[in-house]
């Protein structure tokens, strides 16, 4: 998986980090200190479709078959998250209780082409 630089061409992961203190949310969010809202961007030209993408998905399998049979598809391949992990949060709710929860699939770890 590629990490985006300043010039984005091919599918890559753009790191994007928000510090809760910077947005005045650190009073009610106890942990963590910020949120890695990484996202995927960039092009997926045909020769990259399916790499390293969601090879196991039905979508990618169909693409591979079409390619193998030399059928030129008009459909394009997309740059999507291929790995995500949960975000553990401890925060105050409106009743001043402390709540701890693991929110699944919140942090994008890597991107690829479908």
């Amino acid at each position: 998986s590629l990490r985006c630089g300043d010039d984005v061409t091919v599918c890559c992961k753009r790191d994007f980090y928000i510090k809760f203190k910077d947005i005045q949310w650190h009073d009610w969010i106890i942990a963590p200190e910020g949120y890695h809202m990484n996202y995927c961007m960039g092009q997926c030209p045909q020769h990259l479709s399916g790499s390293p993408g969601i090879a196991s998905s039905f979508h990618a399998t169909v693409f591979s078959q079409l390619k193998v049979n030399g059928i030129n598809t008009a459909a394009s391949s997309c740059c999507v998250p291929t790995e995500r992990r949960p975000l553990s949060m401890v925060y105050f709710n409106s009743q001043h209780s402390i709540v701890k929860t693991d929110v699944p699939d919140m942090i994008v770890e890597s991107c690829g082409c479908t």
Partner: protein
Amino acid sequence: SVSGSPGCASCGLPAMEKDEEQRLMIEIAKQQLLDKLHLKERPNITQTVPRAALLTALRKLHSGRVRQDGTLELDNSLPTKDQGYEIVSFADINETENGDEASLSLTFQFLQEHGQSIQVLQSSLWIYARSSEDPHRDSRLSARVYLTADGGDSDSNRTLVIEKMLEVQESNWHTFPITRTLQAFLDGGKHRLRLEVSCDEDGKNLCSLEGSAHTSYQPFLVAQVRLRDNPSKHSLRKR
């Protein structure tokens, strides 16, 4: 930009200035976090919990570690498959007299959204009991937790939830399992849970805060809950 035309090829948004794009991304992040936490808006923290009490509760709740990027690694972490919550709630505290028993009255506030049904996986009440001042006394003391119905202090409105023998040779924290009590309370859709704790030694309540020099001994309730699937919602299973 695709083939020279600036902006987002798929969503049609015009190209943005860097600052504008940054602001938009922050708004999207805020909205995404509130949605995932089922919050309509960010909570306003009007009264702060004493930091010492907060640290004590967190230490009791999280025997795990904090990773570099801030995520908490927990030994008893909830399975991330379904979103669950661990809640620590601090009580509003009153010292009451009930007959000849001095007891501690705790009131916890819970707010449930309509239509939301919560399953309590486990819950316990954490109470700090001071040591007995009478060195000749038996080091064990009976502690009782009552559920008090709203609007009444008389005996008839109290239901014994649990009775437990405490070691009171030393001052220490004690836990009282109240899973079923909390489940019944939440199922009843009420908002205020009132519990009374009595650790009576000759009319003196060893579980009261009176005389404890430190606010970190504030009683609190811990609960591990998860949102119960809405039976009316049709759920598909993919094979």
